[in-house]
């Protein structure tokens, strides 16, 4: 019987899920996802998490709880770095520990460390570690890794090609993918905008070249990957004439966002006529307030266009 590996549908799931799913399937495992966030999951997460945790981490714990009794393993990698000389937010580094100490009686956690700070090939070490836990051989694991990478590449390609030609306006959303693509905490923001006749662009849709163009505007190198990506995307959107407006989504309690968000907001202010708005989301955010702001923002763009 194939082993069941549970993947919480939160945080880096939204970035790497095609790769992860393919990888475990290739290792003859059945992947169990916790499903889209629901009120029940958020409530469970808020109850389990320490007070200081940010909203996305609280949500992650809720997803873990959802999977608790359904799987043989939980896949919660310790992601330290995914880029040369850069780091991921410390909360990702401590994620497996935070989960262990917040929830009792969990199935074994596959918490292999992913640290590509010095070289990308460290990933091989990480995937082989996973293979060892699942008792799979070198060749099968290497092939699974390769296939996973291909699946991810294809997924990103599809994201970039998704275009809505009927849309009248183009709005860029700046924010972590685990907020934008979680329809519950983002309160379906992307769909709401689409209904208003807006085409939505996210940082994930940018090509590596576009990202490099954006990043060339930074006065110095940043070593937090996620924040750097946000700054690069912001600068790219600023200089792109096709983008009619930018909405920045930040999560309540996110430390890096409070700095990077502020920097981006100041940059936006320096640019005349740049339509820009920041929305800060937390578990209590009311939908009515969000809708009012979105409508007003789209009105503003429309008005300027006249």
């Amino acid at each position: 019987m194939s082993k069941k590996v549970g993947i919480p549908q939160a945080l880096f799931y939204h970035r790497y899920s095609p790769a992860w799913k393919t990888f475990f399937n290739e290792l003859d495992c059945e992947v169990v996802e916790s499903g889209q966030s629901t009120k029940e999951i958020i409530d469970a997460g808020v109850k389990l998490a320490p007070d200081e945790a940010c909203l996305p981490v609280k949500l992650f714990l809720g997803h873990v709880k959802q999977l608790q009794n359904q799987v043989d393993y939980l896949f919660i990698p310790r992601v330290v770095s995914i880029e040369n000389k850069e780091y991921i937010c410390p909360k990702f580094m401590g994620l497996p520990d935070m989960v262990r100490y917040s929830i009792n009686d969990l199935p074994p956690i596959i918490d292999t460390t992913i640290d590509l700070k010095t070289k990308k090939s460290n990933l091989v070490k990480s995937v082989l570690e996973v293979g060892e836990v699942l008792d799979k051989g070198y060749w099968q694991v290497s092939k699974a890794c390769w296939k996973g990478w291909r699946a991810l590449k294809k997924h990103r390609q599809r994201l970039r090609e998704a275009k809505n030609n009927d849309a009248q306006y183009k709005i860029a959303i700046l924010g972590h993918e685990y907020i934008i693509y979680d329809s519950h905490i983002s309160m379906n923001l992307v769909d709401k905008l689409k209904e208003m006749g807006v085409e939505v662009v996210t940082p994930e849709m940018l090509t590596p070249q576009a990202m490099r163009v954006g990043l060339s505007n930074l006065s110095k190198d940043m070593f937090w990957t996620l924040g750097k990506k946000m700054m690069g995307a912001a600068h790219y959107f600023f200089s792109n004439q096709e983008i009619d407006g930018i909405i920045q989504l930040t999560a309540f309690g996110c430390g890096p966002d409070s700095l990077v968000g502020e920097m981006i907001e100041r940059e936006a202010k320096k640019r005349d006529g740049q339509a820009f708005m920041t929305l800060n989301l937390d578990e209590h955010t009311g939908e009515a307030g969000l809708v009012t702001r979105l409508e007003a923002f789209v009105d503003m763009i429309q008005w300027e266009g006249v």
Partner: protein
Amino acid sequence: MKAYMGVDVGSVSTNIAIINQDQEILEKLYLRTQGQPINAIKKGLMEIKDRVDYEISGVGTTGSARQLAGVIIGADTVKNEITAHAVAASTVVPGVQTVLEIGGQDSKIIVLRDGVVVDFGMNTVCAAGTGSFLDQQASRLNIPIEEFGGLALQANAPVRIAGRCSVFAESDMIHKQQLGHNVEDIIAGLSQALVKNYLNNVGQGKEILGPVIFQGGVAANDGIKEAFEKELGLEVIVPEYYDVMGAIGSAVLAQEAVNEKGRTDFKGFDTTDFNYYASSFECEGCSNYCEVINIYQDDEVIARWGSKCPKWEAV
């Protein structure tokens, strides 16, 4: 003569304004919503019906109950209150560059340049300094809210009050009271604290240039107006119809909408003859437990909202 009606149903007040083709205000009405928007809308329509003898060529709704009001009245346009306030401000004071708006439970700032909105802000998780809080403080001090602002102007030495949070502002006020400061100084201190809170919170990072106009229910408070002028170093204009600006904007938008459509969906004032009510239920279809709301006209469901999925979309 063609006339257009705007209805603004907010948390605290329900306002109606009627304008003519040249966007001059013909009638206005300010009612307290008192937690019952449907009743307030009906009452408002019945009252205004007796005052108008011209045909209503278009209707717009705005405010937090804009959808509800739109369904009951048959609105030609249902717009958010930020846009409605901006439209009203630039209609009443052409060339306005900053709009400060403080209502019952929310406050906004709208920045316009060359007649176009370029930026806006709205209070998020804090309602300190909005009308409801002032109402509450006035009744705690046993002063009619209408006199609240006037008293602030009589202050000689406004006290310092922490305006960051309305709960702490209240304890601070009580503390100053017990020390023996007089009421005028306390109220003036409160006005200043609220203005600072507004500018730091809602107005953070916004470029405030004149002409500045101050509207919404709280604009009736001269103490707050003066505090704004002092803090900004700019003249602050309170327009004549400051308390129904949302409704005026909504009427202007209705005029635009009808000009485009060529007809109105207004159900007529007789719509108040029907019995409207709402009922809600918790959908147990999935773990989102959406609170779905049904709006009834007599016994027929005419609108429904609140669900996250299309399950309940069809009426």
